Every structure is written in structure tokens, then in C-alpha cells.
């Protein structure tokens, strides 16, 4: 999922600004409308229609039936479990993302690009394989299976397995949002803080963290959306035990396979709302980043050198 942060913080947006100021009079040919029309048709067919159908199917039998779907212990348990899994895995991966981006962006060392590739690895692995590997490690016939059995610890087909699988699939999100931004910001401000007598931790907390708070937030909401919505990996390790190891996406599957379509789409619509909020927040952050960039540019000299570097 190559989250190319350049759309968020790169020079691309700057270039877009450049274009916007330019009048484009000669471009009113019919071709333009054909292209817009084709793009719109593709968008309607592949993006809008699936989203709309989730809500249309959920409300097929009216609002009463819709809200009744949530009045079910299995549904409530699924919601709670999904929130719990996200509440554990998102902070862990956020802390990892901060540590990894600090190590990768702020220092020079051999094998840096190899390490970055390793961090991206979970994106290249099928979610099904992500679930499977934890069965190979912790399952009854796995590496640690006999030992875990002896000590009566259940990981696979229980909540810890679901958390582990979620950690795996959401592993790179925060790190890959932070690394390019931290690299672009360089170390000058941190050096300044150190010169002024700040400790390492203080520097991180008061200088680095505020500088990356928006990309961090962006990574966290993406990570959260995926953590709540992961299906393949969780499905393999969960064992599908109702009111025990069913997350919301798994609950959707069970209801759907029982032909309980209204309830399935009602639960799905709750997940779709999470997705829509994520997109709205993302647009908000992009807008913030763009306006922050604009105001920062005001402080620059015509040749684009930041003021503090001209001494």
C-alpha cells in the first residue's frame, strides 16, 4: 500500500499551486468533457456504487430493522472486541513507527534502505499468510504449541492471536508516514535544541514530536482503519467463535453467510462510517498541511531559502 506521503508533504502540492494560478483558456475542447465523463463513470461504478449499496442494503427494511441489528449480544461483543484490538495494536505500532522513523531518518548507518524494505514487508504479504504464520508459531502443531499447551496459554483462536495478526498487517502504516517527513525535516532543529542544553528525551518530546504531529496522526488513523477492518489475517487466526473471537468484519461474514443481509450490511455500514471518517480526517490533514506550507513559504526569501539558513 505504498502510501506515498509526497501527496501530503512533498513538493508536489507546491507544484500544484503553481499550476492553479495559470489560466487555461485554450483547453475547452470536447476531449476535455469526454475525459471528465469517462473518469466520472469509472468513479461512480467502482467507488460510489459499492459505498452507496452498503447503506442501501442496510436500510432495505427500514431504520427499525437497521438499528435492531445492533441490539444483539453477538454484534455488541464484536464491536467491543474490534475496539479492544484496535486500542492495543494502534498504540503499539505508533510507538514502533516513532522509534523506527527516529532511527532511520535521524542517523546514517549501513543497510538503511534494507531496513526500510523490511518494514514495508507486511504490505507485500497476503493477509492470509499473515494469519497463517502465527498458527505455525503458536498453533497446536506449531513451534511453541506444546509448551503453550503445557502452560495452558491460548494464543491462536483467541484474542492474543487476533491482536498479533492485526499488529502484522498494520505494522508499516505509521512508520512509512513518518520516515519521509522526518528525513525531509533534517536534524537542524534537534541540534539547536541540544546546543541550548535540552536532553535527548526533551528534544524528542518538544522539538521532533510537534514537527511530525500531523503525519503521525495521519498514520494513526490509517492504521486504525485497517486494524478495525482487517478480515483475512484475523479470519485465519480467530477460529470464528461467536461472542469470543469474532471481530466486526468476521461478524459481517457470518451474518452474510446466514443470509441475514440487513444485519450484515448494518454492521458493514458501521465499518463504512469509520472508513468515511478516516477519509474526512485525511482531507482535513491535507488541507492543514497545505495551509501550513503556504504560511511557511511566506517566510522564505525569493530563492526559497528558509530565513534561518541565510545567516
Amino acid at each position: 500500500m505504498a502510501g506515498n506521503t509526497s501527496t501530503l508533504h512533498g513538493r508536489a502540492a507546491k507544484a500544484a499551486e503553481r499550476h492553479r494560478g495559470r489560466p487555461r483558456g485554450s483547453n475547452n475542447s470536447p476531449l476535455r468533457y469526454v475525459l471528465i465523463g469517462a473518469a466520472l463513470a469509472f468513479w461512480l461504478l467502482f467507488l460510489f456504487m459499492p459505498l452507496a449499496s452498503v447503506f442501501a442494503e442496510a436500510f432495505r427494511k427500514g431504520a427499525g430493522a437497521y438499528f435492531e441489528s445492533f441490539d444483539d449480544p453477538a454484534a455488541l461483543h464484536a464491536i467491543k472486541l474490534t475496539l479492544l484490538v484496535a486500542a492495543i495494536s494502534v498504540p503499539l505500532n505508533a510507538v514502533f513507527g516513532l522509534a523506527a522513523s527516529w532511527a532511520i531518518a535521524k542517523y546514517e548507518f549501513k543497510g538503511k534502505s534494507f531496513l526500510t524494505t523490511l518494514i514495508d514487508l507486511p504490505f507485500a504479504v497476503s493477509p492470509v499468510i499473515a494469519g497463517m504464520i502465527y498458527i505455525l508459531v503458536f498453533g497446536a502443531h506449531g513451534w511453541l504449541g506444546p509448551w503453550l499447551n503445557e502452560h495452558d496459554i491460548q494464543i491462536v483462536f483467541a484474542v492474543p492471536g487476533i491482536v498479533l495478526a492485526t499488529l502484522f498487517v498494520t505494522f508499516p502504516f505509521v512508520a512509512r508516514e513518518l520516515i519521509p517527513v522526518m528525513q525531509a525535516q533534517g536534524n537542524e532543529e534537534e541540534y539547536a535544541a541540544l546546543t541550548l542544553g535540552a536532553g535527548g528525551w526533551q528534544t524528542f518530546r518538544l522539538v521532533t514530536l510537534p514537527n511530525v504531529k500531523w503525519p503521525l496522526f495521519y498514520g494513526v488513523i490509517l492504521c486504525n482503519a485497517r486494524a478495525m477492518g482487517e478480515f483475512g489475517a484475523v479470519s485465519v487466526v480467530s477460529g470464528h467463535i461467536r461472542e469470543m473471537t469474532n471481530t466486526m468484519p468476521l461478524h459481517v461474514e457470518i451474518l452474510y453467510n446466514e443470509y441475514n443481509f440487513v444485519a450484515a450490511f448494518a454492521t458493514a455500514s458501521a465499518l463504512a462510517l469509520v472508513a468515511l471518517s478516516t477519509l474526512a480526517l485525511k482531507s482535513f490533514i491535507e488541507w492543514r498541511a497545505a495551509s501550513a506550507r503556504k504560511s511557511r513559504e511566506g517566510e522564505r526569501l525569493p530563492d526559497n531559502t528558509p530565513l534561518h539558513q541565510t545567516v
Partner: protein
Amino acid sequence: MTENTSPPTPSPPRRSKKRGRVLPGFTPAMGFTIAYLSLIVLIPLSTVFLRTSGMGWAEFVEAGFSHRVLAAYKLTFGTAFLAALVNAVFGLLLAWVLVRYRFPGRRLIDGMVDLPFALPTAVAGIALTAIYSRNGWMGSWLEDLGIQVAYTPTGITVALIFIGLPFVGRTLRPVIEESDVELEEAAATLGAGRWTIFRKVLFPTFFPALLTGFALAFARGIGEYGSVVFISGNMPMRTEIAPLLIVTKLEQYDYAGATAIALVMLVISFFLLLTINLLQRWSSQRIGHR
């Protein structure tokens, strides 16, 4: 994959190792990164390789390349390739229209392009199945034309188009935003037609990013499970994708069979990841030169 953003700070003096380490905290940050990476990703993933190395060669071939498994690979790679191709064409179109043209509703469309990243795959799966099944919005209409989408390879392709849709746009947009209108204008002044401008001026600039987006969508499509299982119908030899076969084998406690398929898929994915990394380096160099 994130390597392409090099620090823009103009020529930092002496990039020696020691200078980098002026900042404290390298050891704990690096230590935690490596430990966490190993625990969550590397050690669990290594089990796939260790398990299969314990199998005999004949056993591995039997499990990883039987008729049913080969049919699943063919279907998986074929549909993923087709979907990535569709996404390359329409991703280019969508990105172009969103960057270059202003029209009502553009912001809404733009904001929703990343929906497939945010929407859970299972939700996408049941929604697409509802649309393309016999009495769905599209399905009922297509059935009159004699086209069946749900429970066929076409349906799998549709699901994979949805899943891979944002990739091409994401890699391509920065390039389109950076591309200079003056170049096109210069070509037009020299007498080039629209098609020639596209073929000779625009396309070569877009190609590396387009290829990267294609490869990313393809890689994602190969591993995709959640959105496909609902719409595919899951008939062995016909609409059974490789990830589903892994799940089926795991449910039958056939761990050797599952790991063999997983190994084949992992090797191909790693190869793709490597290609994508090289492609991104190539395309960022290209942009850098302009």
C-alpha cells in the same frame, strides 16, 4: 519504498557517521525497532521457509504445484494482472482529470479516491456481490445482456479493480502535478497533435510512476482475500484463488500444503517488492532530473 525522499537540506556538511550520532537515542530506538520487527514480522515469517525446508522436494512440488493449486495460481495472477491493467488505464485518466481540470464535485471525488484503503475488504466484498448478483443494481441489468459477473472470474477482477484502485493515482499524481504545461505547449507549437503530445511528451514522463502503481496494484491483488471470497463463489478449479486455497488447507489441518502455497506466493511477492523498489528509485531519479 519510502527511500525516494532524500533530505532537501542543501548539502549537509560532512555526512560522516560520527556527525550523525551527535543526536542521542540511536541505540534504544534502533534496538526497539529491530526487536519489534523481529518479533512481529521476521521470526513468524521465517516459519514459512523453515517449514517448507523440512519437506522433501517431491512433497513440496506435490503440495505447491498440484492441478488444483496451479489452476488457483493461474486465476489469481490472471485476474490480478487484468485488474492492475484496468487500474493503470483508469487510474491515469482519473489522476489526470483530477489534477488538470476543474469541475463541480471534484473535491468530493478526490476525497473518495482512497476509499478502498479505508473500507474493510469484507465490506467491499459483500457490497460488490450485492451489486453484481442476479437481482443487484448492475447484475440485473447485465443479466439481460447475458453477462454474469458474480461468482465468475470477471467478478474476482471487479473486486481486485476496487482494491487496487488508489495505487496508480497515488504514484502518478505527484508526477502529473510536477509535469510542465509548457512542454505540451511547446510540442503543440511545433505542430504536434494531441495524440502525439500524449505519446511522445506525457507518456514517457508518466511511465515509471505508472509502472510502479501497476506493480503495487498487482501485488496487492495477488494476496487479496476478503473482498474476493464473497464475489468469487469459490469453486475449485474455476473460481478458487490461491489465498482461499491456503485458508481451505489450514481448515483441513493440512499445514504442509498451506505452507507450500504460501512459500510460492511469498517468493513472488518479495520479487515484486524488489521490482517496485527499483522502479521507485528509477522514477524518483527521473523526476529529479527534470
